[in-house]
């Protein structure tokens, strides 16, 4: 049985738009507009899309926070809102924008409270906490009230809090938002650790595509509440014809070179290749004044930017 199953999932919000000082108009926002999604145990899924695409709303429906307007969703075999309390024991949730910890308590006490709320056996709790402490370097701020923690420290606390009851599925809504490079790395390698065991399913939304490249095999892209891509990162590159590039810098300018685009006053040649770059590199051997050769992987940012752009143009 799949861990997550969504069929025709929809969420509409009625918002009042101010037209003039007195008049207000009701408008319906289709935040999630018919999402179908199946996620198997142990998958690490990147769920991306431009701002306002409906990512957070989808996650809220899957975690029992929001009641769907239409469609079906099952997580760990439960229907999230009606079976909320049962579901919460099986999932872990991190909302990057919103703290789940107790503002006035040190992390240590928050973790202790969670142990009681989730009724986790003391031994399990202790061993999970020990693992998180060493992987996330929590020790130096374990006794400081949450309100005094930095964002990065707090986020490490949030991750730990979400994992202490041993969830089968971990939902992460922008877990790296606002973090510096080092903290981002810490979060990513921690999540890799969590994922390698293969028994925890991970659903992650982010605007930092490096998170996806590091962590997720599968990528689901949504826009205007609809799934516009579902597959591997490679499949996305293939679909948009993005290719690897070989960039050659020269000492002396050349006028032209077969199969290459000439840039920088003739001092740079750029080749686009499918698959192996070996043939191109072999041909370059005899080129006079050869200074440097670099092989660039296709840039996921470019592909995704193109994807967002085309879907926005298609939209009604």
């Amino acid at each position, binding site marked *: 049985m799949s861990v997550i199953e969504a069929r025709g999932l929809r969420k509409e919000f009625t918002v009042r738009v101010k037209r003039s000082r007195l008049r207000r108009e009701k408008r319906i926002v289709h935040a999630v507009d018919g999402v179908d999604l199946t996620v198997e145990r142990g998958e690490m899924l990147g769920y991306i899309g431009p701002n306002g695409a409906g990512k*957070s709303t989808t996650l809220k429906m899957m*975690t029992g926070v*929001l009641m769907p307007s239409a469609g079906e969703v099952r997580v760990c075999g439960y229907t999230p809102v009606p079976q909320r309390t049962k579901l*919460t024991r099986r999932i872990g949730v991190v909302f990057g924008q*919103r703290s789940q910890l107790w503002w*006035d*308590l040190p992390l240590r006490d928050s973790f202790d409270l969670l142990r009681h709320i989730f009724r986790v056996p003391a031994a399990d709790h202790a061993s999970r906490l020990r693992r998180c402490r060493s992987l996330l370097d929590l020790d130096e701020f374990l006794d400081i*009230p949450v309100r005094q923690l930095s964002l990065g420290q707090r986020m490490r606390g949030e991750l730990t809090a979400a994992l202490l009851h041993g969830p089968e599925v971990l939902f992460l809504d922008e877990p790296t938002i606002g973090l510096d490079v080092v903290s981002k790395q810490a979060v990513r390698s921690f999540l890799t650790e969590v994922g390698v065991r293969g028994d925890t399913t991970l659903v992650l939304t982010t605007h930092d595509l490096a998170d996806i490249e590091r962590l997720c095999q599968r990528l689901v892209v949504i826009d205007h509440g609809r799934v516009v891509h579902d597959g591997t990162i490679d499949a996305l590159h293939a679909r948009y014809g993005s290719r690897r590039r070989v960039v050659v810098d020269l000492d002396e300018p050349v006028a032209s070179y077969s199969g290459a685009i000439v840039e920088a006053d003739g001092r740079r040649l750029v080749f686009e290749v499918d698959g192996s770059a070996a043939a191109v590199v072999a041909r370059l051997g005899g080129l006079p004044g050869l200074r440097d050769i670099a092989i660039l992987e296709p840039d996921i940012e470019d592909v995704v930017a193109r994807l967002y752009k085309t879907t926005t143009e298609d939209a009604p």
Partner: protein
Amino acid sequence: MALLRGQISAQASYRVSFAIDLGTNMVATMLDVLTVLVLFRVTKALGGFTLREAMVMVGLTALAFAAADLTVGNIERVKLYVNTGRLDAVLVRPLGVLPQLLLMDIPIRKAARSVFGATVLGVALASADIDWTVARVALLVYALLGGVLFFASIFVATASVAFWWIESGEIGNAFTYGGREFTTYPINIYSGWFRRVFAYGLGFGFVSYYPALALLGRTDPLGLRGGRGARAPAVSVAIAAAPAAVWRVGVRHYRSTGS
């Protein structure tokens, strides 16, 4: 109970504000009683009730309200949680929303009010001329439970409004605190539609007025049939079922906030 301990230690980290709160809570409750005392300096009787008799109603109201406030008063905070989307975090934990909101902030400071309410009621009962029987003792207990439940359901009902109407502001307080004012005095001092709506329509008359009549062994100056007093708490229980249902529907109606 660990949740309780955690809260106490969290509150202890704000010692000064805690002491101030405790102080203001005490003063507010004393003012309630002072108002009634001052009133009776002006008139000898209120709606045909002497000071001692009226104090039974004051005491019943004070204790029932304070106990309800102590147990579920915190539910008022749901407004803030709905407004800021912080309810999201509450919903992903395996406990009901209500118990979590209540435990989020244990109102130790409000305990003082309950103690004070109990004292007022104790003094009132002792000084009023009550012919104690087993039935009357039972009625007292039963009336208090009914009263607490009644005020508790007013708290829940008014808090539920926040799920539909975020800018509900202080409207809820009109019912909770206004209701407490109402039941502090004998209902026959109010007149016409106002009394009908509040005392019978919304059921405030059954919190202190009718139980007090039964305790004091008086007939209703308003001429309702006898036995009303004894049945009054049952009315409160019946009324309490509705807010619980409204609350549950409200939680499903929660729409969180963007992002």
